[in-house]
């Protein structure tokens, strides 16, 4: 872990093909993507999301079938929206968007990414800290807590945050390798947690499970059984919790390495392992905790310890750590792009510091469902710009890759098309209290339409720049 900062620059992942299409020799078959997605989506946040469904009063039927459908829609989005463009353009989102939106606007978008990544990493640090705190008998914050509940909680979060940030800054490659090693083990521990929790619940039938599930909701809601998430909510949440990656096109950067667009099906590995099995397993862990300890606080460390012991604690720490690491690193790169002349190391440490401060406030972790929806609402609409530019711009007489053709730094068409639907969505979310995941698709769709309308109004002549010739 004491590698020099230039270790980061040695990573071929970071250096190769950042601004050029991926050549044929570097392309990968579908097999590489199945393992990658399955491992990447068994993350620390899965320990939080599953239990939050129980606390939201979601019925067992809606969890099993809503997640089944929502995850399938997410897989379709990767396969038919993101992967086809990725395997034709073979560019990162950054490069692709720069050609449409201009380099300065991409930096602004990048900054928004970076800030949101910091808060996401903060939630992961909180998750890890709940496990680290167990040997110290740390009193966990209550579910509705916004502020930390004790000085010891703050100290442990700070310690975990400092270690994770330092490792992200100095030892990115080492943690990447460790994440590869941990991934198959984590998936099996998640599965084991679910099996053991099921046993602890003492059920032998679907009806029995439903009954004890309803009892758990009733306990968590002080005797009531009310739901704030119906079937549609579960479907939309599962579909759009990774909206920035599929319809938002962030995974252009991943699938540009794929030989064929059909590799997009590999995302099913991540969705049905991480966002189906792991969420359900984590939800069952909370139900088992309620039954055994009469505690409905969805803190991952103690929940995992109850079912599989110290291996569970290790799993929570590793899951949070291995996912917070690249998240902080990527946020650091975003900040560096905004502040030319700064080093990657200093910006990674800055991102880590922001994430650690965010982690002190447990509300970020406990409100993860809303935060993930907000993340998609803000970032995903830019994917619609890429989609519309790729498939529709020529058909309506608009110049594809307009910024590249005209040399502009900020495309007003893209800026307005992005800001208007996002601003409207944020108004409804914060001023009217409407649930975040309702706005992801409308904002995405509106952004694409507005981009075409504004581009058409601009009336630029058809450029000689052709799709695919990048």
């Amino acid at each position, binding site marked *: 872990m004491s590698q020099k900062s230039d270790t980061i620059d040695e*990573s*071929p*992942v*970071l250096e*190769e093909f*950042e601004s050029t299409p991926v050549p044929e020799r*570097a392309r*990968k078959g579908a097999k*590489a*993507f199945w393992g*990658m997605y399955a491992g*990447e989506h068994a993350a620390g946040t899965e320990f939080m999301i599953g239990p939050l469904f129980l606390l939201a009063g979601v019925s067992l039927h809606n969890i099993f079938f809503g997640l089944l459908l929502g995850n399938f829609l997410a897989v379709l989005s990767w396969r038919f929206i993101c992967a086809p463009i990725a395997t034709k353009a073979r560019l*990162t*989102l*950054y490069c692709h*968007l720069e050609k449409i939106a201009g380099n300065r606007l991409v930096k602004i978008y*990048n900054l928004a*990414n*970076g800030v949101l*990544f910091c808060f996401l990493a903060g939630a992961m640090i909180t998750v890890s800290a709940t496990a680290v705190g167990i040997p110290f008998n740390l009193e966990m914050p209550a579910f509705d807590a916004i502020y930390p509940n004790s000085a010891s909680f703050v100290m442990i979060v700070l310690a975990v945050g400092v270690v994770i940030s330092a490792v992200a800054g100095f030892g990115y*490659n080492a943690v*990447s*390798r460790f994440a*590869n*090693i*941990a991934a*198959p*083990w984590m998936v*099996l*521990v998640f*599965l*084991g*947690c679910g*099996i*053991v929790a*099921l*046993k602890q619940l003492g059920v032998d039938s679907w009806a029995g499970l439903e009954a004890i599930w309803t009892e758990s909701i009733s306990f968590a809601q002080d005797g009531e059984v009310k739901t704030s998430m119906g079937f549609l909510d579960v479907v939309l949440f599962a579909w759009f919790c990774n909206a920035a990656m599929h319809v938002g096109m*962030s995974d252009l*950067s*991943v*699938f*540009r*390495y*794929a030989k064929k667009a059909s590799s997009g099906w590999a995302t099913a590995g991540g969705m049905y392992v991480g966002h189906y099995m792991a969420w359900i397993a984590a939800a069952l862990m909370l139900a088992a905790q309620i039954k055994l300890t009469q505690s409905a606080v969805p803190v991952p460390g103690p929940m995992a310890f109850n079912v*599989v*012991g*110290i*291996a*569970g604690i*290790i799993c929570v720490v590793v899951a949070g750590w291995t996912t917070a690491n*690249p998240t902080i*690193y*990527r*946020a650091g*790169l*975003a900040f560096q*792009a905004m502040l030319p002349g700064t080093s990657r190391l200093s910006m990674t440490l800055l991102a880590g510091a922001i994430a650690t401060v965010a982690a002190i406030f447990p509300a970020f972790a406990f409100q993860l469902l809303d935060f993930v929806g907000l993340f998609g609402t803000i970032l995903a609409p830019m994917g619609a710009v890429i989609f519309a530019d790729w498939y529709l711009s020529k058909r309506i007489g608009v110049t594809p890759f307009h910024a590249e053709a005209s040399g502009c730094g900020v495309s007003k068409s893209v800026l307005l098309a992005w800001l208007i639907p996002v601003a409207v969505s944020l108004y409804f979310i914060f001023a009217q209290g409407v649930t975040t995941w309702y706005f992801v698709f409308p904002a995405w769709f509106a952004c694409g339409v507005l981009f075409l309308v504004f581009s058409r109004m601009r009336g630029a002549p058809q450029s000689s720049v052709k799709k695919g010739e990048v």
Partner: protein
Amino acid sequence: MKNICKWIGLLSIAVTFILPIVFFIDRISLDAMKQGMLISTLVWFGTSLFWIGGKVSNKPDGDPIL
């Protein structure tokens, strides 16, 4: 050495999978299962270091920021 570590590692990961099932069908106690999970975890990490990801590969999972 590498092969031995690989087989021990695969065995430990299989044990990680099997132990919760064995507990589910009442063949071992919760405490025994927890201890077994910890041992298989330590064995997995102890052995996999020698045969998984010897160097950082050019795998498509880490594009900076976007």
